[in-house]
């Protein structure tokens, strides 16, 4: 797109060529990040440690109670395990990357490419996360299963996989949209970290969202965050409880699909606005 928001070349690439470009970008990103495998391997220590702490917390705090918010101790421990593992699959830093490109002016290169930058960034995420699933999620899944003494397997495997894929896309959309702040603020690192913290907390990365105050929950489910992580994790546990309603896995995935579609529209609109501000010198 140019500075008025018109497409320069992005739409000229045929859909098949776009897919090929996406696959090529993913492959290159995989190779690039494979060089930093020790960076990813840190998760083999941090992931299990985080899980063990949460597991000990659940064990210590649920000694005298049978179930809290409809979740027994074993469910709560499984929730922490699935949230940790799903986190590796959906993790994203498109916001940081976009803000860096805008701040340094390197975003110009992408305006000249025949592929819209969001698609380019999505290709990067595909490659990066595919590698992370291999280097982070699978070994940590093995370690967590060993700790639990049984293989940790999600219920409704197919729906869980589909929901996780939607969470993957939604996380990218939301993150990219918040990265667009970089077109308005020269140094947006503080805002970015604020958003990331709120995003993970409200996505249920640390505690099930049913633990949050009941008055806050209706507002929470209007935000995109719970649909990124909480919904896939609850599907893995067997049932999705939202505002007192128990949804089946297909119903939850359908709702998640609608949220993802809405955010695709929001991102497309806000990206056009942001591009108009870009002056190739930090916006």
């Amino acid at each position, binding site marked *: 797109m140019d500075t008025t928001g018109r497409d320069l070349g992005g739409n000229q690439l045929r859909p098949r060529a776009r897919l090929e470009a996406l696959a090529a970008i993913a492959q290159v990103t995989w190779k690039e990040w494979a060089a930093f495998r020790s960076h990813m391997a840190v998760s083999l*220590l941090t992931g299990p440690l985080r899980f063990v*702490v949460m597991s000990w917390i659940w064990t210590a705090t649920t000694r005298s109670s049978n179930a*809290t918010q409809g979740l027994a101790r074993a469910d709560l421990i499984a929730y922490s395990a699935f949230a940790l593992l799903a986190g590796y699959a959906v993790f994203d830093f498109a916001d940081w990357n976009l803000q860096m490109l805008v701040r340094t002016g390197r975003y110009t290169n992408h305006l000249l490419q025949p592929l819209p930058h969001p698609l380019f960034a999505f290709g990067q995420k595909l490659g990066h996360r595919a590698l992370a699933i291999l280097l982070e999620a699978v070994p940590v899944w093995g370690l967590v299963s060993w700790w639990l003494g049984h293989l940790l397997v999600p219920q409704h495997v197919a729906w869980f996989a589909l929901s996780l894929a939607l969470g993957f896309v939604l996380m990218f959309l939301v993150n990219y949209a918040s990265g667009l702040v970089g077109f308005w603020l020269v140094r947006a690192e503080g805002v970015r970290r604020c958003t990331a913290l709120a995003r993970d907390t409200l996505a249920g990365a640390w505690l099930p969202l049913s633990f949050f105050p009941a008055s806050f929950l209706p507002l929470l489910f209007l935000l995109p965050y719970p649909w990124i992580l909480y919904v896939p994790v609850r599907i893995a546990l067997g049932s999705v409880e939202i505002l007192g309603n128990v949804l089946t896995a297909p119903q939850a995935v359908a709702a998640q699909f609608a949220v993802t579609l809405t955010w695709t529209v929001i991102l497309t609109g806000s990206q056009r606005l942001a591009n108009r501000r870009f002056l190739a010198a930090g916006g």
Partner: protein
Amino acid sequence: MRSLASLLLHGIRLGLATRMADRFDFFASLLVMLGLELLPCLITVLLYGNGLAFPGWQLREVILIQAVFLMAKGIASPLFGGMVWNTSEMIREGTFELLLLKPRHPLLLAVVKSFDPEDLGKLFGGLALSAWCLRGTGVPRPAQLAEFGLLFFVSLVLFGASLLTMASVVMVWVGNARIFELFDRIAELGQYPPVILPKRVRALALAPVPVLAFAVLPASALLGRATDGWLWAALSTFALLALSLTLWNYLLRRFSSAGG
């Protein structure tokens, strides 16, 4: 001594001036650095709000542990935290040699160069939270305060030693920013009451990995609770400090201007 103080003050002034260039980002960072550390508090409040509890510990007592952790980190991080990141970046860029050419010990210069006020948010947050907790648990007696002072000093030394160890490790493990995450995960064990730890782990958490010295022991002193094993924790903290200084000097000697 006067020149040392003036050097440190110069570093602090420079650190402040750098961050004041973009005040909005600075204040946002100040808040977020506090916010990121409030996660254990949020977890604790939500647990207690849902009728769960750490056996034998009131809500304010648990939050006090986390507040003390914040205070210690809020003092140690601005002074020494930037050193880890700076050392890593300077070695990656090949500018670490500039420190070696200056007429002071490279460790002192690394500390002076790295003052970052954004972590002060943790200190202010920790002070405010401590005040709230102590309003509910009662004002500590002078003897408790004295014990707290001693154990808080141990906690600061432990933070300093941990950060120094990390700054040493990044000399050979070049460009790995996730070392902070590794530290946070280990330190997380010391942000909740020790009842969460299995018995054998509890002994290890005093020595040789004194995670309980980060906040549990000083907070227990303030609350008038038992601080058994504090001497072991203090000894292993000072052993860790000696080890980290040895490691820094050893790796500095091996430094070959190409990433260690």
